[in-house]
């Protein structure tokens, strides 16, 4: 069993002005594993991702990425290594290819067309989409392009924020397979936010349940079938009802 930690949080809090979004969170994500982050809207899950990607810094506490404090890393290196794909799937104006090229251009490099086509195929999109304008893509296609774009940096840790929320059942299944494939074949630690608890049980090794900015319960994903915490029990019951 691999007990190395990809990310550790020690008493991490984050406040935006008077609003406390993350409250004294302590916990860790195991290296090489898939962890689901579940909880109601407003629980602070996306903010936790933004903290781990270094887009924002905690107001209190420490974040340790692969055994080193987060502030030791150059921000650009950290963000390439801890990839983040948000639910909003923000695209830059232009073609799908332009979006896939973006991480390489930012690093002063280029992304060959065949490599971009391979990335599209890896996320289950047709390579013919490469020259399509992003304005003509569906929500699901944008989500997949967003994941492919994050993979261009070959991150060791991947943070995926509700990436299947706007996908149909078949696409969702494709992405679930993709997550397992990336995790297994490339040994990438994956942490993903999902509202689908069945999905969390099936795909992930571990699960974190967050509510109101706090980590309520964490452990193997089987905890969702028999939670110890009363709040988690109610949450699971509500979701499964």
């Amino acid at each position, binding site marked *: 069993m691999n007990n190395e930690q990809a990310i550790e949080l020690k008493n991490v809090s984050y406040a*935006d002005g008077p609003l406390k979004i993350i409250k004294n969170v302590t916990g860790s994500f195991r290296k090489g594993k898939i962890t689901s982050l579940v909880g109601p*809207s407003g629980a602070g899950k996306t903010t936790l991702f933004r903290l781990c990607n270094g*887009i924002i*810094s905690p107001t209190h506490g420490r974040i340790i990425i692969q055994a080193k404090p987060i502030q030791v890393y150059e921000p*650009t290196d950290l963000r390439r290594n801890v990839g983040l794909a948000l639910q909003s799937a*923000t695209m*830059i104006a232009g073609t799908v290819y332009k979006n896939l090229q973006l991480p390489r251009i930012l690093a002063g490099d280029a992304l060959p067309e065949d490599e971009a086509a391979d990335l599209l195929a890896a996320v289950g999109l047709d390579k013919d989409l490469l020259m399509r304008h992003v304005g003509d893509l569906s929500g699901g296609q944008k989500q997949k392009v967003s994941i492919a*774009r994050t993979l261009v*940096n070959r991150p060791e840790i991947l943070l995926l924020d509700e990436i299947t929320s706007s996908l149909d059942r078949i696409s969702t299944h494709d992405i679930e397979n993709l997550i397992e494939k990336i995790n297994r074949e490339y040994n990438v630690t994956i942490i993903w*936010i999902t509202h689908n608890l069945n999905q969390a049980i099936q795909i992930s090794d571990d699960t974190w349940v967050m509510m109101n900015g706090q980590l309520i319960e964490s452990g193997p994903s089987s905890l969702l079938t028999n939670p110890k915490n009363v709040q988690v029990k109610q949450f699971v019951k509500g979701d499964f009802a």
Partner: protein
Amino acid sequence: MSFLTLSLALVFVLIPLILTKTLNLGLGKDTVIATVRSIIQLLAVGYILTFVFATENLIYIILMVILMITAATHNARKKGAAIQGITWKLIVTFVFIEVLTQGILIGFKITPPEAQYIIPISGMLIGNSMVLSILFLNRFTAEIEARKDETELILSLGGTPKQAIHHSLITAIKASMIPTIESQKTIGLVQLPGMMSGQIIAGADPMQAVQFQLLILFLLLTTAAVTSIMLGFLSYPTLFNSRMQLIKLPDNNNPA
């Protein structure tokens, strides 16, 4: 023109006052304040310029330019209040514009180093630079807000602050420069510029007036480009902290 003749020109103030009263526009007080202020300010400037031109003392010329830069900075800084240290950035920009343009004009003997030339030209260039700064700061802060998601996307993918802000910066620079370039395309066709009109009314040879106007137009192009670009590149680093995080935007996070 005598002061008596000029006082007759107040008829042109009465017309808008009557109109605003009749139509209940509520602009009567502002019109009166604007009229009184313009009379006092311009008469004061007239007396000061007469004194400065008569003495031809470099110290007075420099003081006049400092006064112009101070007033321009005071006016423009309100639009960039969100940008840390905007006052100094504006001062550096205006001083640079002044040194650059007067350096070229005097250095290449385009204009003589006399108060009669330095002060009016400085006034036009600093005034234009002030308007450009306001246009730039307005657009830049709006662009940062509008493109916040794009900026954070680029940062999250490993981009630097300069890469993340590039689009907002270039768009704001272009937007602030366009009015200067566009107005120059129609100059002489749609409107006769104020300085040229003034010289012609004062009895100058129209071709001489045109030559001076062209000089000013070319200087304004330099001012437009230098003001926007300099202010932009001085401002953007203050929008990020040492961890390359965006810090200077109105918050619209959507924590989930």
